[in-house]
Structures are given as C-alpha cells and as structure tokens.
C-alpha cells in the first residue's frame, strides 16, 4: 500500500499541533542543566519558570506560546518509499484542517508583506522544503513553525574569502544585536558557505539538530564549542534579564562555495519548536520527536 494524501495531510496537521504544546525533551534537559549551572538567581528562577511552563503545557495539552508562528515544514522523501500522493497539496490541506479544527484556535499570524493584512493563509504557505533520503523506505516530515520573537533576528552577510576569525566575530555580533529580545536561551543555527539561498537553508536546518549532539566535522565541532562559550559570555541570560545562559547550543553546517562566502545565523527561542515523524508504506507512523 503506497503512502496516501490523507496520511500526509493528517500527519502535517498533527505535527503542527504537537509542536505548539510540547517542548522537545533534549531542550528541557538542556534548560535543566542550565538552571543547575547558573550563577545568577534571577536566571535560575527564570529557567525554572520556563520548565514549569513547559510542563504545564504538556500536562494540560495547552500552547506554550501564543505566537503559533507561520507553518514551516521539511519533507524528506526516501528514495525507496512507496507513495502515491500529491504531497504539496496534502500538506496545504493538513494546515487548513489544523486551522479549522485546532482547539483552542490559533491567532492570525500569516502576513501579506505587501499589504500587512493578516490571516491564517497566504501565498506560498505553508513554507515547505523538499529533500531526498537515499535508500530510505519512508517519508520524513519535520514541522518547525517560525514565530516573530526569534524569527526577526536571523541575519546573513556575504564575505570574500573570510578568515575563521571574521566568521566567528560576525556570528557573535549577530547574537549581540539580538540581545535580550529573542526569548533566550536560544538554539543558534549557523550556515557557512554555499550560495545565498543554500546558506540560509543550512542555518535553519542546523537549529533542528538535537541539542547535545556533536558535529561530525571536528572543525565545526570546535567552532560550535567556541561560539557557545562566546555567546554565553555576553551575559544577556534567560529572557535577556541577565545570566550565564544565552544560548543552549550553537549548531553549524558548511558547504563548499566560490570565493564569496555567505554566513547565515538563525535562532530558535527557548521553546525550540520542532516535531518530526516518519510515515511508511504500510501506514505506520513513527513519531521521532
């Protein structure tokens, strides 16, 4: 039995709804570690409130945040997956179903940038990125809705043959500019190289990596450690009211490019919205997170 439109629509709908109500386990663990290590009392109390809020949302099946964001999905299609579906339409249908059925209702955040009119729907919504997974017999869908609080601080700059020092100083400066305003502690995603469009995608995808995972590339692993320490040394702290924890993690991806080098930085706020599931040809749905 091939994977159907209905299965993809239902999963898209559910992944979004779950993402609004549950802070991922790795993120809660990182918040707990941060709380235990904090030297600022205000920061410890703030981190405790975050953990209490996350638990209250999970236990009561409630939204963690009122900004439900705009719908963003990543779809990775296994090259051995058996599917017979109009995936684009199915995801759009799933989001429409979410808007019509979710309880409580979500707020109207989707904005037409030309008129500033706001509603539930708009051109090119949901935003979906497609990719392939060699040899896999499933379709994987990641839902990571983007809200205003952290979404507006993403940045990119194009350098020419930059040194590592230039790259790292830029990333630190982007973090200093965001300052207290992106609901820290954040997860930072960094893209280095490739082209303008590909670099932004790498940065966004880097935010989705589990916290605590070590980058397979030793150069990037070292860069991530340096930048995590650097951003936390700024002192903005939880909710930007001071403390040792401004970033829960910095995750970086790189790609080869020309002599011009884009560097992109993306932020996820402390609730780090991210859900992921796989759907198989036999109808099984495996929720990964």
């Amino acid at each position: 039995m091939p994977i159907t439109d209905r299965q993809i629509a239902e999963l898209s709908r559910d992944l979004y709804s779950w993402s609004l109500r549950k802070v991922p386990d790795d993120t809660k663990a990182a918040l707990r570690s941060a709380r235990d290590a904090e030297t600022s009392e205000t920061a410890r109390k703030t981190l405790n409130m975050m953990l209490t809020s996350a638990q209250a949302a999970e236990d009561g099946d409630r939204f963690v945040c009122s900004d439900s964001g705009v719908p963003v999905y990543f779809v990775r299609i296994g090259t051995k997956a058996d599917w017979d579906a109009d995936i684009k339409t199915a995801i759009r249908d799933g989001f429409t179903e979410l808007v019509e059925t979710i309880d409580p209702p979500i707020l109207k955040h989707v904005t037409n940038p030309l008129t500033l009119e706001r509603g539930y729907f708009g051109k090119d919504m949901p935003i979906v990125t497609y990719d392939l997974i060699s040899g896999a017999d499933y379709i994987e869908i990641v839902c990571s809705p983007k809200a205003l609080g952290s979404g507006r601080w993403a940045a990119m700059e194009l350098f020419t043959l930059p040194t590592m020092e230039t790259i790292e100083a830029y990333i630190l400066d982007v973090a200093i500019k965001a300052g207290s305003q992106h609901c820290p502690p954040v997860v930072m995603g960094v893209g280095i190289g490739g082209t303008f469009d590909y670099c932004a995608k790498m940065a966004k995808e880097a935010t989705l990596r589990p916290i605590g995972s070590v980058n397979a590339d030793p150069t990037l692993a070292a860069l991530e450690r340096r930048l995590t320490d650097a951003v936390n040394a700024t002192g903005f702290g939880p909710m930007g009211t001071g403390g040792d924890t401004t970033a829960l993690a910095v995750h970086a991806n790189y790609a080869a490019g020309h002599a011009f080098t884009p560097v992109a930085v993306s932020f996820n706020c402390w609730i780090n919205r991210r859900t992921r599931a796989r759907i198989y040809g036999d109808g099984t749905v495996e929720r990964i997170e």
Partner: protein
Amino acid sequence: MAEIRNCRLPLSEEDAASLRLGDMVTLDGRIVVTAGIPTHKRIVDCIHGKETLPVDLDHAAFFHLGSLSREKEDGTAGLDVLYMNPTTSTRFNDVMPEIIRHFKLRCVGGKGGLDAECARALGEVGGVYLSFLGGGSPLLSDAIRRVVDVAWTDMISHYRLVTLEVSALGPLTVAIDARGESLYDQIADQAVNRREAILESMRQARSRIG
C-alpha cells in the same frame, strides 16, 4: 534577592518607586493588554482626539501581551479570553514614550524591553517595565480571573485592547525601574564592553587547536 513580592494594581507611586532592578513581583488587579502596532497607533490617535479611547489608561498597567478572545461558548454576551502571552516590546519603541507620558503609565511590560527614550519617559512618570516570561502562556493565562472588556473587536484578536482582572500574574522581573534605570541597557552595554575579551578568548581557543 528578596522573595517574590505581590503588588496590588493600580500600582501606587510609592510601590513603583520601591521596586529595584531584578526584583520579581506578581500582580493582582486590572491590566490592559494588546500586541498590535496598529493598536498603538490608534491609541496615539485617541491622544490626539481623533477617536475616543474605550478604556481608562491613566496610571494603568499596560502590557504587550497577545491574547485570543472569542465569543462565549454558552452564548452569553461578551468575550472569553482563552490564552495570553507576551510579545516583543521593542517593536513599540517609537510610540511608547508618548503613551507612557500621556497616561503616566505606572506599569508597562512585555518581553525584550524598551529603548532608552522609553526608559527616560518611565523615569519622568515614575513607572516601571516588567519582563514577562516568553513561552509562559499556561502560567500567565491561569492568572486571568475575569474579562472586564474587549475593545476594538473590529481588529484581529491579538490587536484588540483587552482589559482583564488578574490574580498572582507572574512572576515578572523588574527590568526598567521608576528612575528610568534599565537592566536591558546595562546588560547590552556590558555585552559590548566584553566583546573584545570574548573575541580574544576565541582567538586563544583557535590557536590551541592549531
């Protein structure tokens, strides 16, 4: 740090003056909330006499919180507020000084803070800025005791001007005090001052790897 202190709204001049940066408080009483830039512009229009403001903001607690309001399910009159949560206050930097000064707001708040001009305005009128927990919707919504009024229902939900009766709202962190001192400015200055030393630490860490 002192224990979390409960304050009654409207906040008295003395209570506002007694709050120190970093103090945590909970609030009881009446608050007015909105998350809309168009709402703020409309409030400024009201100040200039173009429209009548439907709520009393004098010395009020006015917060940057977005909320979902809808018709009551039992069919009775008025609206229910199902949840609320803060939005980034710096988005309102350009209009807040006038609003703070005109209404002599005793309490403003949201998340992410306000700029130096807003802090100056708060210092002039003896008001404070309180930092709410972003992603605190379950905790903040549980503090709602009664929906007093939902004004400007011609606007989308989170732009409306909503008056609520709350109990034990918070804890909230005092981030700009009644003298206009701003924790945000202090922390941002500190980060900028630390920048060179942080870059040097990264330089040393890179050289250790070779």
